[in-house]
């Protein structure tokens, strides 16, 4: 094995290796959607976040506009504090409504933003004024049964 052809094959090997990493990064994973170029931070308080996870998506009108970066429990108010980074290109009014929604019946949970009509925009570090917690299936079923039970005697 002479030097030149050895170098050639090693070079080929390394190139294919880097190509594979690139393929994994760009085609399999998605570097671009995970890291927005410029972001700002918003905070939302929820009574219950359900199954929301760190790195979960933040969507508005179905478009991913940011990611959840931190989830804490606020022991003063007994609420969940969710921090998210929003893509700097998108701005939302002060009275935007943040709610925790579920993709499909059993899919992953995400934060949905419904824009309000306020003139002023949310700045980095602001907190959402109005939020809606996750729908917990057990509670929903409980409420349903309770209302059924209370309406039955009246009906007869």
């Amino acid at each position, binding site marked *: 094995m002479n030097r030149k052809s050895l170098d050639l094959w*090693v070079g080929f*090997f390394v190139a294919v290796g880097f190509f594979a990493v690139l393929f994994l990064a760009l085609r399999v994973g998605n570097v671009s959607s995970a890291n927005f170029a410029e972001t700002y931070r918003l905070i939302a308080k929820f009574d219950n976040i359900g199954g929301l996870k760190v790195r979960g998506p933040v969507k508005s009108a179905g478009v991913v506009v940011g990611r959840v970066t931190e989830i804490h429990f606020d022991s003063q108010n007994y609420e969940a504090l969710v921090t998210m980074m929003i893509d700097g290109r998108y701005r939302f009014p002060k009275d935007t409504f943040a709610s925790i929604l579920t993709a499909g019946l059993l899919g992953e949970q995400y934060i949905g933003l419904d824009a309000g009509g306020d003139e002023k925009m949310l700045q980095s570090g602001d907190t959402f004024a109005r939020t809606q917690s996750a729908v917990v299936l057990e509670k929903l079923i409980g409420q349903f049964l309770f209302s059924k039970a209370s309406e039955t005697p009246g009906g007869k």
Partner: protein
Amino acid sequence: MLETALEAIRSIGHRVNDALQTLGFAARFLAMILLYSGQSFRRLRLTIREVYFSGFQSLLIILVSGLFIGMVLGMQGYETLQRYGSSEALGVLVALSLTRELGPVVSALLFASRAGSSITAEIGLMKATEQLTAMDMMAVNPIARVVAPRFWGGVVSMPLLAAMFSAVGVFGGYLVGVVLIGVDEGAFWSQMQGSVDFYLDVWNGIVKSFVFGAAVSLIAVFEGYDAVPTAEGVSSSIKRTVVYSALAILALDLVLTSFMFRGI
């Protein structure tokens, strides 16, 4: 009766003693490799040569195995997912299993039996035929000249091989899932891209394979250097390289996984 019990305890003691001694020597050996690496990097050609032997020559087995494993994942994954009506998530399943676990682990196991065993055999035979002693007598440090290049060759090759394994595996899953079975192509890729994170999944997989590469290479060069210089001794060293590498890969995988994917 007491005699046999004592004898058993004594032999356990001996074994523990031997094992600790070997471990200590291995640690000292790693320190020596790192110490003399500077010397061997000054002649980079030696390491490039080893990248050729352990990396390039493992290419075929890695690519073929990766393709097959990806195709099997595609079939089995589809089989299970379609019961829950979510066969579009096939891409996610294939890509995550490969980048997080199967890519680094299976390619490291293949690497240990393909390249690791041949490194051990080569160094062991050089020792058995007095080539290492001869080198030392010729004022050429065998660790800088023979051991360090093989170690670094393995460390460099392993992450590249694991990345190729995963990439080809994803392609295999695509072939079976999309081309053969007919899962929607757009859903296959977009769901995959939505759930596979570069840092968390791809990068952690590369870190894993780097650690496995270092472990397998160290075991291989150490077993070769520590071999009993006879035909029998070299063959049992090769066996130990494969067995210890497999155990080390799986144990390290458990440790690394529990660090990387904790609570997410």
